[in-house]
């Protein structure tokens, strides 16, 4: 569940924000059963890396959009009312969208590895750290209990 949510967050990070396409994907993700913390956190973290990925996604989008076979179908699609708000004729939007969707299995795999590595090497240390800090700061203790309870209820990925 956590890896899935993280992969969805990465996908949405690729798509430029405040476009209709982004909202169309973001709103359903907010409504389905996802680990929202992982989803929103990964989306925010992913945005930090986007300046390094954007040139590549833009070139990918332009490569796709400039395929001759796409000329007529895209023309018909963009002639439909409302479709221009998706801005799929923009190489940057299309590149980000394709990279996010097509690369989703890869992002999921990476997320699984990250979660596994966390549980194996960091989870205990983080829990201990919170426990120690919780002994001194009551608020952190409550937070530690909440994290533990969340893990029990949410279940493993």
């Amino acid at each position: 569940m956590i890896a899935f949510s993280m992969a969805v967050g990465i996908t949405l990070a690729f798509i430029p924000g405040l476009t209709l396409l982004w909202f169309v994907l973001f709103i359903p993700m907010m409504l389905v059963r996802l680990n929202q913390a992982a989803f929103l956190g990964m989306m925010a973290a992913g945005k930090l890396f986007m300046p390094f990925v954007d040139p590549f996604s833009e070139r990918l989008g332009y490569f796709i959009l400039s395929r001759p076979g796409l000329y007529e179908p895209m023309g018909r699609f963009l002639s439909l009312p409302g479709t221009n708000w998706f801005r799929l004729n923009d190489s940057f939007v299309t590149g980000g969208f394709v990279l996010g969707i097509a690369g989703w299995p890869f992002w999921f795999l990476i997320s699984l590895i990250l979660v596994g590595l966390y549980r194996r090497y960091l989870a205990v240390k983080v829990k201990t750290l919170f426990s120690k800090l919780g002994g001194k700061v009551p608020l952190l203790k409550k937070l530690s209990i909440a994290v533990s309870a969340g893990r029990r209820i949410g279940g493993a990925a």
Partner: protein
Amino acid sequence: MRIHRSFRGALKEKKIRSIRGMLTDSSQIKLFDDSFPRGEDGKYHYSKPSDEKRAEKIKGILKKVRKARSGPRTLRLIILILIIFIPVVFSLFFLDSLAAGSLEEVLETLSGTDVTVVNLDIRPLEGSVRLEKLAFASETDPMVDSLLFTGLETDFSWSAVFFRRFVIDELSGAAALNASRETAAVYPESFEAGSGSGGFNLSGFQTTSADLAELIPDETLNLLKNLRGSAEQRNKDWTARVNRESDDITALGERISVYLSKPLPGKTDIQGWTSLIEEGKNLGGDVSAESTVVEQFENELEIASQDARRALEKGRSAINNDLNTVQNNFSLNDEMLNRWVETAVISIAGPKAASAYQKIRKIVLHLRDRTQNEDSDDSGVVGKGRMKRGRIVFFPAALPPRFSIKLLNLEGDDISIEGTNIGIDQDLAGAASFLSIDIKGVLSSEITIDGRETAENLIRGNLSSRAAPWTGGPDAPGGMITVQSVFNVRGFNPEGDADFSSRGQVVLSDWNPILFFGPSTPPLPFSYNFSADGGKTDLKIQIEPKSLMPWKKEIGDYLLSSGEAELKKVIPPEAEEQLEALETLIEDWDDNKAMLETLSLQLDSHQSELDAAMDELTEGLPVDIPLPRASGVLGGIGSLLGN
């Protein structure tokens, strides 16, 4: 300890079965069945177990069931609605003020002056926008709006909005020029009052006698000296020779007198007669020779006199040439005047034209930035936001224009703005756009915008003004301007390789203040050619030579009146002396002529005396041999006598 509120009420059979299906442990199912007994109404009600441990356990079971439920999460939905729709609702409530502020900011950026937007009313459901007042403050007077629109009303097309386009069906309202403001304008920070007005520097009209003195060359003075010297020397030599000749003639006269006083020989004294005749013959020859010499002197006198006159003319001509040279150096020929007027006009109009062009370019680029940053087909454009990094790939989609005002009608007492299909992508609108601006009595223009890729010109139009006031700047002359011009724009893009050109005829008249001269300044007609390529502008002025004639006259009069006195000062006194000397010399020659006449008369007298003597001799000859007259033929006697 209470269970979740969703289980406190009566539960239906279906709900109970659903919950039981989620439980796998039989002890949990039994505890659940015990805790929710069926009531008389056929529904199941929670009955708290008496045992605290069982009550705790059923509470935990219900909590897990609730967490594991399927279907929409109401709380999340509410949060999502709050996150997404609150800004939308906020925008709807405050849309008018937000849009007004944004419109004001954009227009101030574009116009560079203070813009006032009052009561912007956007009605999305009606698809209409109303604006009570839109004012552009004057750049020179903060208490005046140079352009004012009131009662603006427009209807926009929702169908175009679905295509992410903005098409206005009709924009109408009232317009006015130079309306007074109630409060002073607050100009943007980037505003610079009077920016773009060029200086006015009319140089090249001032000369001093010191400058002119250097223009009289030494060669002229040397020439005058040489002319005078040679003429004087020639006169001196000639006079000396004439004096000598005069002495000779005087001596000849004395010899004739002696000859005439001699007694006649006897009739038989043939030898005496022969000697007397021989002496007379010699005297006649001398008189004839002297006459020839006098004639030669007369000829020489004539030639020398003419030479002296020519020398005088040459001297005068040299002086005049020098004066002309001087005058040309501080008067205006056609080329010089043309260059001066061109410089003056460019110094005034150049910065204004460049400023106007840069303003138009800024507006166009700004609009393009707004509309094309996201639609740019240029990979080199990298903006601040992520969306500015993409390239638009064009597909054969049937779309409305990006922005269009189908019908524009702004009418006022002193201004009228009309147009059709004003906007961007007019090829998509199916027709070229047309804009007509008529400032009554002052300016009218017609502009056609054609955004098609195959169009020769993106924008083309004509502009004509009828005696509009103009000024070159705070300290520069002004007057009235009449313009007939055409212009065209072939393209604008962010790289700045725009191609803008304009040419036309301009007449500057009613100069104020009057320039330099007389009671009025003549009108100045000229043609211009303005071109701009990116940030560089070039203004060229061409003036018909015929139209400069009044200016030449005015300037010439001015220069003559101010320069004549100066000019006279630069003729050196020595040159005047030389010329006067030559004139005196010519008078001397005339005097010499009189002397020659005297000599000639003297010779004639001697000739007459000699002729009379010859007649006397003829009468007294012992033989009847007629003697020829002495005048010219005395030599014949000799032949008769055997000589």
